[in-house]
């Protein structure tokens, strides 16, 4: 797939929760969203705006009540449960606010995990996990368990894990939310690096408008509907100006 091709296509997505009939509670009211290959897009919204629900649908963890969703050419509504598992495994790389590393399992094994579920051989996946950890600068800590790592280190391991099966899209849900600003900066720099050097499609979900300024496209969501879309000015900025934005963000 070349840059610019359609990666993510959501059409008129509705999501309702049934809290016992007839109390139907609709969270998403017809979301239309497309993301192209190689884009760095942010979804911004306050808590309760429905952005987490949207993220769950995009991440194939949940199915929409109504609407069509195509991810990298795969029709999500028609996929069976095990096909959704395979989809999450190969096409999506999750980065969570709370890191969600597997406890009592060292950094290397954590990164290997998605490759293990993909059925990759042991030697091959260990090599790749080491390579990925090197990219995020975690080589010297790869044999440490999560409880021996700082927040920033955990998130770097989590990013390496998200990259394990070379996913079509990285889905980062408040990745800097639990980190101090300096560490958050470092994490954002890793995303920029992945985006610019490897052309990764990244979807950043955040409540922070400042952070969203660092992306190509900003989608604002409120009360389950998309309020609007604006261009982030990241690409047009010189490196000095970028440094300025980064300062502001901090």
């Amino acid at each position, binding site marked *: 797939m070349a840059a610019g091709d359609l990666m993510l296509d959501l059409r008129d997505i509705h999501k309702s929760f049934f809290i016992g009939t007839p109390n139907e509670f609709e969270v998403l009211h017809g979301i239309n969203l497309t993301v192209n290959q190689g884009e760095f897009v942010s979804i911004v919204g306050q808590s309760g705006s429905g952005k987490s629900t949207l993220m769950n649908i995009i991440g194939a963890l949940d199915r929409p009540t109504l609407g069509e969703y195509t991810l990298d050419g795969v029709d999500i509504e028609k996929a069976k449960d095990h096909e959704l*598992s395979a989809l999450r*495994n190969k096409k999506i790389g999750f980065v969570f606010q709370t890191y969600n590393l*597997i406890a009592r399992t060292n950094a290397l094994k954590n990164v290997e995990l998605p490759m293990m579920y993909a059925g990759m051989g042991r030697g091959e996946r260990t090599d790749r996990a080491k390579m990925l950890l090197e990219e995020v600068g975690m080589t010297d800590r790869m044999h440490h368990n999560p409880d021996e790592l700082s927040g920033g280190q955990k998130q770097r391991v989590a990013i390496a894990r998200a990259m394990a099966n070379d996913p079509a899209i990285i889905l980062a849900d408040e990745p800097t939310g639990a980190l101090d600003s300096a560490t958050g900066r470092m994490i954002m720099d890793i995303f920029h690096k992945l985006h610019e050097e490897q052309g990764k499609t990244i979807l950043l979900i955040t409540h922070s408008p400042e952070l969203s300024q660092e992306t190509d496209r900003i989608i604002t969501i409120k009360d389950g509907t998309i309020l609007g879309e604006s261009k982030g000015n990241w690409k047009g900025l010189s490196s000095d100006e970028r440094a300025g934005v980064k300062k502001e963000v901090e």
Partner: protein
Amino acid sequence: MLIMENVLLALAGLKSNIMRSLLTMLGIIIGIASVIAIMTVGNSITVMVNTQMQEMGANNLTVGVSAKSTSEETTSSGLHFGAGNRRSMDTEDYITDDMIDSFLEEYSDNIKYTLLSSTVGSGTAIDGDLYAYVNVVGYNEDYMEYNDPEILAGRTFIEKDYENAQKVCIVSNYFVNNMFEGDTSAALGSAVEISINGKYYTYYIVGVYEYDDSTWSSDSTEDTTTDLYIPYDTARTQLHTINDGYESFTLITTIDTDSEEFADTVETYFNTMYYSNNDDYEVSVTSMASMIESMTTMIGTIELALAIIAGISLVVGGIGVMNIMLVSITERTKEIGTRKALGATNGSIRLQFITESVVICIMGGLIGIILGVVLGSVAATYMGYSASVSISAIIIAVAFSMAIGIFFGYYPANKAAKLNPIEALRYE
């Protein structure tokens, strides 16, 4: 392979919380250990009994006179009653020498020895400060030959001793040690006086045999009661039973004879020839082989009953494992959510937790086996049997603990597999 990964993962999990893992396994450990211990003791007893009975002779037939069971006397439950009406055994009911002689003539090809013995009794030989405990038994020629004591000095009985019911005896080396301070040559030819229930019997020592202390009792001391052999008819004369018949005697069949089959032949022979007109008594023959068989079956049944009771603790142990698995799954809800987000299918989550449960149970099983073998061996040794571990019990135990792991692990594992990934991820 995913299974190998899961096993390693489960082992790492067990290691990370050793105390909890041990407590979880405890039920399985105790269950398996008690089953194995019981089976080890049972097996040791069976092996012991078998060897001893085998030593006595598998081609050993006991011919005895027993009460006829008639249908009127047997209730539906198989219990006998009305024995009061039965006349007690009389002289004419016994097996006579004539019967035996004609029987032996008929079946000489099948019989190696006809063992006849008569016990005079247990008594004491006293000579001043010296004393020895003896058991005075009269053996016929066949019995002496069959018993084959190791003669250290002197001779065994000769034909004249048997025929004339000579008052001669063969004593053990223990007896010589006690009564003659080990001087064998002084013992030979000497007369010994044995007091049995206030009666005194005198015999002349013609031989000394070596007391075999390897069987039955390992702790023989100077006070051990040893056998003092006298000729069969000497015993009968002294007991005034010389003209009586026999209530029972033992046949040793030749190696080529199928002793169980021959038992029927003997029974038929005596009953048709001599007991067809006897309303109350008949001859019945018990073979050692059938005795071994019924003994083994009996021990096996008791063992099985005990093992089943012990097996109940295995079920309790299994429930303990299930409980901990449920707790563990609740604790690790977020992990399960994360794994699902990373692409784990329901099947691989289920496999992970079943593997964990099986690993716990097998670890418990292995510890239990070791513990059970040690306990069982100690118990068997303490009870005086040589410990013999039942291999089949160990194989069954491993298979059983695996089955428990799968059975009690399935429900929690399935619960984990069916967790909604979103709710699991949100779980705090």
